[in-house]
């Protein structure tokens, strides 16, 4: 059994007349002591690899690396897990098995690797059709923890944006998808849309030789998921407005629009599948009817829904006070993640300005990003920024734009700008 718990970090004290309540909620999963080992439900792993013509470029280096990486991933699939390998061009086709899903064992893994080795790269790119194939396969095992790894090296040329959006919408809730772009010729916003809607991650794989480790890591992580369906159930009082529900660690992901109403005061926000030992942070902002000084009101009641069973988790409170020492206290967690969100925004705006040739705005925004990343100890993001700007003084955010920036470095900064660091709770 995996046990879930939630902890709230907030300043519950509001000045008179204030209506906005911010809270950071840490949701933790831990493997229960009673477990004799992982007791996972049914699992489905689907690997979708781009076999369009562009994968044949660079003398076949990309497709050879993709074959080798997929074979390595197949080796990490646990016995008993249902799996399939799908090839993607202007449509989707089965690489292994011939139809539906295979059950992983010594023989099927060997057969799958043989089948993958025979893949040839030719044709176009229609990511929506690949997703539809994955959804069909996931539907063969209702209730299973279904995960897809999707790789492309190019833009979604053979579908209109609206078609991709429609296919993504059909897949919501059916499986989770980690999307990876190989090289620099793919479109970040396309894969980000896929990953956001399907509760997965998006990242760049700059060079073909990096694929092996990334595929292995992602498949191993998928095998580690213990609970397939977790939702954050949020009750807010009558007359209130939920401004947002965001995942803020390990990365920023706005869940607000993914909420589904349970009743007029309660909505569920999907948190996807969880490993047996995992922490994630969420930032919630609610606007509630103003109370009198001295009043206390619940701003939110947080419950967790684990495989359809609801459990109480934590309370977010609002207490109106005319004591400024209380109402002006800054909650460290809320401030930290507000800063991480500003960091991601500064990177996005800075890169957009740079793209548009507005060097002045780009310098200001990326300078602010360096400053925020430095202050919060987000060293990975500092390193990514350093490949795009020359940092003169990180503390003050004094930077100069670099002239020759590798396209893959720019894309890496863009796609990883939403990665956050957790607040250091041992600091004081």
């Amino acid at each position, binding site marked *: 059994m995996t046990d879930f718990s939630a902890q709230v970090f907030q300043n519950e004290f509001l000045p008179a007349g204030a209506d906005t309540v911010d809270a950071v909620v840490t949701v933790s999963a831990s493997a229960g002591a009673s477990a004799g080992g992982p007791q996972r439900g049914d699992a489905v792993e689907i690997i979708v690899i781009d076999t369009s013509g562009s994968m044949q470029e660079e003398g076949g280096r990309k497709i050879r690396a993709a074959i080798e990486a997929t074979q390595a991933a197949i080796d990490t699939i646990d016995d008993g897990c249902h799996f399939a390998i799908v090839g993607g061009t202007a449509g989707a086709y089965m690489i292994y098995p011939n139809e539906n899903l295979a059950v992983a064992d010594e023989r099927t893994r060997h057969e799958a690797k043989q089948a993958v080795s025979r893949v040839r790269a030719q044709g176009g790119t229609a990511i929506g059709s690949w997703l539809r194939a994955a959804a069909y396969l996931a539907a063969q095992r209702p209730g299973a923890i279904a995960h897809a790894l999707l790789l492309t090296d190019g833009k979604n040329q053979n579908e209109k944006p609206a078609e991709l959006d429609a296919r993504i919408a059909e897949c919501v809730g059916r499986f989770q998808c980690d999307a990876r772009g190989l090289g620099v010729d793919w479109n970040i916003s396309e894969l980000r849309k896929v990953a956001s809607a399907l509760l997965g991650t998006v990242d760049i794989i700059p060079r073909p030789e990096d694929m092996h480790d990334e595929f292995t890591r992602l498949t191993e992580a998928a095998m580690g998921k213990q609970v397939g369906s977790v939702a954050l159930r949020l*009750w*807010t*009082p*009558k*007359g*209130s407005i939920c401004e947002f529900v965001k995942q803020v660690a390990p990365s920023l992901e706005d869940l607000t629009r993914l909420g589904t109403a*349970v*009743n*007029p*005061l*309660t909505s569920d926000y999907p948190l996807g599948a969880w490993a047996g030992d995992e922490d994630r942070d969420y930032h919630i902002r609610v606007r*509630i*009817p103003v*109370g*009198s*000084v*001295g*009043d*206390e*009101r*619940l*701003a939110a*009641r947080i419950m967790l829904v684990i495989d359809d069973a609801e459990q109480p988790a934590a*309370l977010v*409170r*609002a*207490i109106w*006070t*005319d*004591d400024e*020492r209380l109402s002006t206290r800054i909650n460290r967690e809320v401030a930290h993640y507000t800063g991480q969100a500003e960091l991601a925004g500064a990177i996005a705006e800075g890169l957009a300005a740079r793209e548009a040739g507005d060097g002045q705005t780009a310098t200001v925004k990326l300078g602010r990003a360096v400053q925020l990343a430095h202050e919060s100890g987000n060293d990975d993001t500092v390193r990514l920024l350093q490949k795009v700007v020359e940092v003169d003084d990180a503390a003050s955010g004094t930077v100069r734009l670099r002239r020759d920036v590798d396209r893959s470095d720019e894309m890496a900064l863009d796609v990883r700008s939403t990665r956050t660091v957790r607040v250091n709770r041992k600091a004081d």
Partner: protein
Amino acid sequence: MTDSDTRTCPSCGQLAPASATWCEACGHQLDSETKPECVACGEPAVEDDGYCHLCGHRQPGPRDHVETVDGPVSAVSDRGQRHHHNEDAVAVVSVDDGTAVLVVCDGVSSTPGSARISALAATTTAESLAAAATDGAPPEGMAVPREALEAAVEAAQAATGAASLDMEIDELNPPSTTLVAAVVRRQDRTVLVSVVWLGDSRAYWLDGDDVHLLTVDHEVNGALTRWVGVDAVHHAPQVAHHEFPRNDRADVVVCSDGMWRYFAPELGEPAGELVARLKEEGLGGLDLVRAMVDHANDRGGHDNISVAHWAPDSSDGVRGTTVGPGSDRSTAVEPSEDGAKEAQAKEAQAKEAGS
């Protein structure tokens, strides 16, 4: 808020026909047990955790309004209008026909745990003084000897110190409270009032417009200079003994600053006038104390409000007793030299009195 033929679902707030068994909006079972009505929105939706399931309002806790009566002695402690919790506490004992103990403690709201400390200090002090008041004849001019008053505060310090050990407290800011206790003893011709206190809670002798403040606030520029708490074990209590001629109009009032701030004419009504007016309206005992607390709440209730009251000559057949010209022989007794120095030294680390 609901018509007789509809009801509000306590789970989601949607209206449902009164005859409905289930809420159509959320599936909540409607004819399950009725929940208590919310004090804010009036809907029967208060959950076991004390919050309304519709508007979220926290329902009043047991400490928000406390009334204590022992015979003719009454006390009320109220949250007021602006504070989130009531950290004040009161305790009263009617020791015998002519003797009473009145205690008010004002827990400092900026130090977590003060509500528990103030309650403990009030009851410990009251019990100790009630025992002392029955322990033989006191020295002349005193309701109880000075040693008994100091021992009662020492007992309160010890009890709160012990309680602080097993509480989660802020080490730099441990829970603390003011303390004022009055022992009132009616004699043949006079009434003796012995008072002990730390902090800015007060005791009054009221005789119509003739108001005697029996305590001196321990505060400098709004900061307490003496209090009860683990960071104040060396704070010396101040003791005073007063003797007044018997008078059937007289009242002893012990209160926290949440009450006495409204004795300022510009904020409310002077103590003597207020009490005299309420008595003219026919109020006495607990009703009188409630009306005093209402007065403070009507003026804004900026702090917790606590009042303890006894009219030593009005309640038990001695009404109308002729009182001689006897003098008001008040004698304030300062703490020992060491104690005074200690108190001064502590002023440097005084905490704000804005409790």
